[in-house]
């Protein structure tokens, strides 16, 4: 498909439903990821259509090999789909080049990884500053904001320590602060509790919930249904397809007034989406 065709299609899609295009944060349209190994072709993602609205806390859950990691890579702009289109914040990112994707990741995405993925040679503070360095934020401003983010996750006192000297739970908090530092539109958390004991894992999940209540959009990727139940929407993936997409009530956490409207809209979309296949 040529670029011009793409543009036409995009324009047509935009014309059809301009309001939705503007408000839907993540919109996967019939996404395929096909790997070719010799004669065999493997559809790691086999036609996923999915929308996630601003302010949602969605969990993508699936067994290993279900395609959830590939899905997260595509949502995280670390990978591009073989087929289909992916709109992030209204922009088609499905055919972007390496460096364009880097800019998108820098401006719109915050990652939280299972293994924290902090850079061991840099201090806690320097790690949190990294996304802002690549954004070109000035040093003073950068430092102040990084400290603010560390305060937000409750570990500002460790800022001059090296990450390896901190406990797993604290390292994960650093990586959450780092994810927040880029002022992302979406926070992608890939098995954020996978390397933690259940108590610290719960603390991290509570932190994520709190961040969601403050208005952050969070997409949690996990194999553990128990963890997925902490989210307000559960998207179950198997064999590269969405097999279930449901609203979930995580329980005690109260819903702040500000995000309620967004949620209702999101819910309407889900129900619409579920009729699709």
């Amino acid at each position, binding site marked *: 498909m040529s670029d011009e065709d793409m543009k036409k299609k995009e324009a047509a899609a935009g014309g059809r439903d301009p309001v939705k295009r503007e408000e839907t944060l993540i919109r996967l349209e019939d996404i395929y990821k096909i790997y070719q190994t010799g004669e065999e072709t493997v559809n790691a993602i086999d036609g996923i259509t999915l929308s996630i609205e601003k302010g949602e806390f969605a969990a993508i859950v699936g067994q290993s090999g279900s395609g959830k990691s590939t899905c997260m*890579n595509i949502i995280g702009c670390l990978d591009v789909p073989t087929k289909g289109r992916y709109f992030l914040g209204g922009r088609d990112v499905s055919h972007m080049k390496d460096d364009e994707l880097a800019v998108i990741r*820098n401006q719109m995405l915050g990652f939280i990884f299972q293994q924290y*993925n902090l850079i061991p*040679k840099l201090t806690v503070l320097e790690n949190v500053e990294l*996304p802002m360095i690549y954004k070109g934020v000035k040093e003073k401003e950068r430092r102040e904001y990084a400290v603010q983010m560390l305060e937000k996750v409750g570990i500002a006192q460790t800022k001059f320590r090296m990450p390896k000297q901190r406990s797993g739970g604290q390292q994960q908090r650093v990586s959450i602060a780092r994810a927040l530092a880029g002022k992302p539109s979406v926070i992608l958390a890939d098995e954020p509790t996978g390397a933690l004991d259940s108590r610290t894992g719960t603390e991290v999940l509570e932190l994520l919930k709190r961040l969601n209540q403050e208005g952050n959009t969070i997409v949690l990727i996990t194999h553990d249904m128990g963890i997925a139940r902490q989210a307000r929407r559960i998207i179950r993936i198997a064999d590269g397809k969405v097999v279930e997409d449901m609203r979930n009530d995580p329980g005690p956490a109260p819903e702040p007034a500000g995000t309620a409207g967004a949620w209702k809209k999101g819910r309407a979309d889900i129900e619409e989406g579920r009729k699709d296949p």
Partner: protein
Amino acid sequence: MNAKQCLSMAFKSLKGNKIQAFLTMLGIIIGVASVIVLVSLVDGMAKDMVSQFENMGTNLVSVNIQGRGATRTVDVEDFQELVQENQDIIAYFSPVVSASVSAKYQGENLSASVTGVSEDYEHLTEINLSQGRFLSYIDVERSQKVCVIGSYYEKELFAGASALDQTLRLNGEPYRVIGVLEETADSEEGSADAVIYTPYTSAAKLSFNGVISSYQLGAVDTDSVEAAMALADDFLYDVFEDEDLYSITSQEEMIETVDEMLATVSSVLVGIAGISLLVGGIGIMNIMLVSVIERTKEIGIRKSLGAKRKDIMRQFVIEASVTSAMGGIVGILLGIVMAYGAGSLLDMTVAPTLSAILLAFGVSVFIGILFGYFPASKAAKLNPIDALRYD
């Protein structure tokens, strides 16, 4: 990401790996140090030689006669006649007799080389006296036992006291010091200050060899140098009928020859040192490649946070350049120290020039960029997913 952040990141990563960083730099350190040492020594040598030649004056023509037996010779009178007849071309004339002697003053004893010359020698070469006078016509005519000494001998034999009018024994013969030369080098052994001039008539006796075979002619001006050479050539060819039996060279030719020779020597030496720089550069590339693999995960993390290819590229290139520039700086310091060490050991003048230092530094930075480029582009092209998954 700006250059300052890259630099501080590069330093941080070097600091984290001190031994590895040092080993990486070692090749560059050795390479740069050897370039500095060689260039300093060769330049110092060239300076010494050129200044010695220049002291002798550029209108100078040297004549050396190998001769053939006793049947065909020229003596000083024949030459003097030639000079007399061609005063429009040749202004000055001096035979040159060299003799190795032992010089003795009171308890001090030295082996010295005596140069026997005529009174004209003062005009043939640059002679500046700090005390007394130079040789005169009378001294030469009467084979007076007088001498003019360089500052080295004054320092060594007279221990700083005035040598004027003292009597020096050359091979046991008493010679009165009638003049002392100004210091031109560092009053060191083998330098331009280690000279003793006596009348050639006296020096001929000291040399145990009556035959005078070297002459120096001073042309009236630079333009007459060739005419003077032609004249000497005609004269000597008439006597010997074989141009292999004598040689005539002008000062300019000698300076050129020496310059050429030194340039060849220095380019060969610097070329060899350059090979060690190249090896150092390959060492940097090797370590950087290992470092790219070691830091695959870090690269993946950085990319996931929004680092573009050029950010990663720049980080690695700057790191390689900083490594090699630091190696360069250490190498320059080491080189200067070693050059002066070697200079005092070999008794040579050392001249580490600013241009050599800047060149060495520039080359080492350039090597860092050159050999850092390949590993850096490898790092920049890593796929973020694969890099993140790497352990």
